[in-house]
């Protein structure tokens, strides 16, 4: 099992496209950090206008913690694409390359093959999130220093003391791994249906974009389905940056994401076991 997993990981990290994701995270973080260094205070004060009119806020506002949060927020849509780049290729890529039938002639069950590919995709996803933590958080702390963190929500202004922030990031990145694993499992499912990897990648992005829009539209028509969309729960990492962390709600979101992941994976296994492999 471990040997097969290592082979899958070798295949993932042998492909140049895998490093596109790490390059995108690096470039986005650096561009954002440069922009925040140049005019971050003005940018942030625009968002704080209502507060600044009434309160005089002083200190290192544009610090590493805040910049990291803004980077994570801006990468909310992009990271699923980067995960889909690899997970969407897991089965469809083999089918496209004509190697899927060859693999299945080996004494490896289809279920085990799907599980190993899912595990390899999950490890890649976790490594991407760790790299995001290095670039967005640790590099920002190096460049901007630390300090108390301001979190602007749509109707709430939150200030977190600097000694109370790092553990929140650890939990947030942990939650992000879970959320992105859900994306990986969705991509795997779509990958099982396709014979080339472009389709699953685009389909994954399409679903994420449409569901994200639905999650953020506060129209009565959509509010009924919001609790059932995984995209409504993917932003659960933000809950760790509330003054009083809503553990119950985050736990519920984590459970929803876990159920979605299990559901996607089970569906992939079911379909893949019955699929007629012709390539």
């Amino acid at each position, binding site marked *: 099992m471990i040997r097969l997993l290592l082979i899958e990981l070798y295949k993932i990290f042998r492909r140049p496209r895998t490093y596109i994701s790490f390059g995108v995270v690096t470039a986005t973080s650096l561009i954002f950090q440069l922009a925040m260094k140049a005019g971050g205070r003005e940018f942030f004060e625009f968002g704080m206008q*209502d507060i600044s009119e*009434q309160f005089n806020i002083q200190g290192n506002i544009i610090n590493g913690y805040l910049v990291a949060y803004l980077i994570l927020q801006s990468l909310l849509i992009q990271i699923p694409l980067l995960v889909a780049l690899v997970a969407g290729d897991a089965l469809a890529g083999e089918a496209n390359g004509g190697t899927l039938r060859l693999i299945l002639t080996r004494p490896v069950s289809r279920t085990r093959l799907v599980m190993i590919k899912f595990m390899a995709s999950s490890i890649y996803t976790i490594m991407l999130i760790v790299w995001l933590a290095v670039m967005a958080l640790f590099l920002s702390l190096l460049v901007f220093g630390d300090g108390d963190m*301001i979190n602007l929500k749509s109707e*709430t*202004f939150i200030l977190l003391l600097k000694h109370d922030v790092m553990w929140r990031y650890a939990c947030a990145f942990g939650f992000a791994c879970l959320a992105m694993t859900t994306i990986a499992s969705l991509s795997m499912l779509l990958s099982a249906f396709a014979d080339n990897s472009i389709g699953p990648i685009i389909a994954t992005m399409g679903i994420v974009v449409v569901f994200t829009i639905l999650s953020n539209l*506060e129209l009565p028509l959509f509010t009924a389905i919001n609790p059932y969309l995984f995209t409504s729960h993917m932003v659960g990492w933000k809950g760790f940056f509330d003054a009083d962390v809503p553990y119950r709600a985050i736990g519920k979101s984590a459970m929803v994401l876990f159920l979605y992941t299990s559901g996607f994976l089970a569906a992939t296994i079911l379909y893949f076991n019955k699929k007629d492999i012709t390539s």
Partner: protein
Amino acid sequence: MIRVLAFVFTLFLLPFTTMASDAQGLYLTLRSKVLTVKDYTADVRVLIDVSYMQIPTLEGMLYYKAPDKVKMVRKDGISMLPRKNISLTLGSLIPSGGVTVLDAGTATIKGHNLRILKVIPDDDKTGIVLTRIWVDEGELLAYRTETTTRDEGTVVLDLEYGSYARYALPDKVSITMDVKEYKLPKGATMDYSEAPGTPKKPVAAGGKNEKGRIDITYLSYKVNKGLSDSIFADKDK
């Protein structure tokens, strides 16, 4: 007859003019006591209670220099204080320059028998329209002020005194003030909803302003030691 009428009229007005004069004297004495503090440095603990703010208790150093310079500094941290015109020092809420002082009766607050003074500034350059001050005549201390400003609503200060009462410096100040509502588009913040799909609570009718409260506890003071203006420069901008 005219002399009798003039006598009766004078007799009727005399208490009022005497009271106004007493009130004016009391106010000026209080003001001169407050103004003996030219500057101070204080270790403070600030608690901000505004409905849309989630802020822990902030500990830091508060610098004050007469007449209206105030700055809070927290080592490597962010400090928040109300804007200048609704300042947290008694000195800046008691109108300076020419004033008209009226006696507005008496009241009891926390066991202190207090005289209420209404102070109307002769000019409105400070932005203060009217100040009501609850003064303990014996101690010569203001226990409450209610200042109506031109642009920033009404600010109420409740003061508690301890070992620095001789300077009219409080151990604790509770500021109650009008705060405007705060809102950003949800599409920009992409908030995490604890219960997705739950309808939002309706906004309370009756205007966009609400009351906020800020408690400042002064732990220690260093008074009139001399402070440089450079301390008050905003280095972060």
